[in-house]
């Protein structure tokens, strides 16, 4: 309404403001996809319903860490200092919590990939200066960050609990400071593995539910099967069968980092194999799926 319409066809300027600011490139796009991934996974900026599942899992993991710390403190008080050294500690946490971490990833990871493909939103991302591999890398980083946080938080809770429970917290920390870089590294190991597998599964289907069930089904099938038959068969064959226990693959690396077998993997025949082999196996099972995931998204065009 700012000018009279000239005869024969008009385009009105209804005040649409042209963007005159800076236009940033791929890096900005990647960061945006990353940030959106973290928000989608943890339900930030969405209602309470979206927060329920992810935060429940975080709470459970933290709770496990807390319980471990409390039990250690109680054991020290009852049996004298040093009793708690026998109990599960940082090196065992990931083994104990692995099933929770896997279910967490199975339930939350599909949220980041499946929805976009189902609703066709992926095309909106791809018409930006953002390639398919940018997108999947940003999403991977987002979920990896979430998983690392979920792995580290309970460990820090455990550390705090153990230090507080000790009569001389500072001395405790000085004696056990090596645990910290160990559980940080093991956490990264765990997170990378879980993230890659979960996202790979999610990249094969557009319904979140199918991805979740498939992933959990995969673990439910392989874990008891390999555990059972490995101890039955024994010997080298048994060790190799035990290597296919998917939940233990990152835990073996955790054991390598901590230098001793954790509670969960103590009986696993695979633990008898040379350390380098276990680490290489882990790398295979993380990089392999990662490469497949990357190639699935690399060739996507809008």
């Amino acid at each position, binding site marked *: *309404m*700012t*000018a*009279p*319409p000239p005869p024969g066809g008009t385009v009105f300027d209804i005040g649409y403001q042209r963007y005159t600011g800076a236009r940033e490139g791929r890096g900005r796009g990647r960061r945006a996809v990353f940030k959106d991934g973290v928000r989608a996974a943890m339900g930030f900026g969405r209602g309470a319903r979206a927060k329920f599942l992810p935060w429940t899992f975080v709470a459970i993991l933290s709770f496990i860490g807390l319980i471990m710390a409390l039990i250690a403190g109680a054991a020290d008080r009852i049996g004298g200092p040093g009793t708690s050294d026998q109990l599960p500690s940082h090196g065992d946490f990931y083994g104990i919590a692995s099933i929770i971490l896997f279910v967490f990833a199975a339930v939350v990871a599909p949220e980041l990939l499946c929805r976009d493909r189902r609703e066709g939103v992926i095309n909106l991302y791809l018409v930006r200066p953002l390639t398919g591999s940018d997108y999947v890398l940003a999403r991977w980083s987002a979920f990896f960050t979430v998983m690392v946080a979920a792995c580290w938080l309970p460990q820090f809770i455990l550390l705090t609990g153990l230090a507080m429970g000790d009569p001389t917290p500072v001395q405790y920390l000085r004696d056990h400071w090596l645990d910290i870089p160990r559980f940080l590294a093991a956490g990264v190991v765990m997170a990378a593995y879980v993230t890659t597998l979960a996202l790979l599964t999610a990249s094969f289907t557009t319904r979140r539910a199918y991805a979740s069930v498939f992933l959990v089904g995969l673990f439910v099938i392989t874990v008891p099967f390999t555990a059972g038959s490995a101890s039955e068969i024994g010997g080298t064959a048994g060790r190799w069968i035990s290597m296919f226990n998917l939940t233990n693959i990152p835990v073996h690396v955790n054991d390598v980092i901590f230098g001793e077998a954790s509670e969960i993997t103590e009986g696993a025949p695979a633990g008898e194999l040379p350390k380098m082999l276990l680490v290489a196996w882990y790398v295979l099972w993380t990089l392999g799926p990662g490469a497949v995931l990357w190639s699935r998204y690399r060739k996507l065009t809008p």
Partner: protein
Amino acid sequence: MSGDRAPVIRVDGVSRWFGSVVAVSDVSFDVTPGITGLLGPNGAGKTTLLRLITGLAATSSGTVTVLGEPVRDNPPLYGRLGVMSEHESVYGFLEGREFVELMGRLRGVRSLERAVDRAIALVDLADAQHRPMGTYSRGMRQRMRLAATLVHDPEILILDEPLNGADPRQRVHFQQLLKELAADGRTIVLSSHILEEVEQVADTVLLIVNGKLAASGGFRAIRAALNERPYHVRVMCDAPRKLASAVVTLDSVDAVNVDPDGAIVVLSRNVRDLQIELPKLAQAAAISLRRVEPLDDSLESVFGYLVER
């Protein structure tokens, strides 16, 4: 549009909110046999209102009565109601005919075969009826959904944007069909955001803007009513009083108010002329116009819809 018979659908003081978002705000109207068009911009609340009328959603306050009975939690009523929702998704694995049969069975249709044949013939899809609906084009899906809506010969039809994706030929066919159905005494409520669609078939129009009922009644009556209300147009310029005294001389202007913040509000019943003359006036008086905007929010959209022809 006579008022002496009981209305087929009565919407009484209906509101619906989702948290702090009000989708429908205190709407009341009656629907009688014939075609009623529900018109409004996207996001105005048409779909929510239709879902409230069909009982798919519950009202936050107010009541909806269809054929004298509450529509919510009243399954037997659906035998007389045919509903086509805005969602175009169907069971892709079902053949078109199977889908219509399923809908017919669920609504208790007797002599199903004949009813299905009739419905499919009405939408002219007899040659595609044995293909899975997943292979249909968008227009074909809409038409088969319409057939499913008509299979039980309902006396009331509620159609939410039924012409989405219809090509011009289908549109003409569809409008013809609707008129025939209405001529048999049925009550049809049809929603759209496209003026022409509604104008060509509807006897009565309900205009929804921002969740509120902005106008209702016959088309021409609404236009006439609108023409009698002056519109408020706010003008910001660098010499308000000077402009005001010039503007008040225009025929198209009813009155001018000067706001304390330096803007003037022009009341006019002929904004088209105002549009042409105001800039001329400003130019002649060497006043620069900084901003010209209508103050009637609801009329901004009504404006474009009903008056701009």
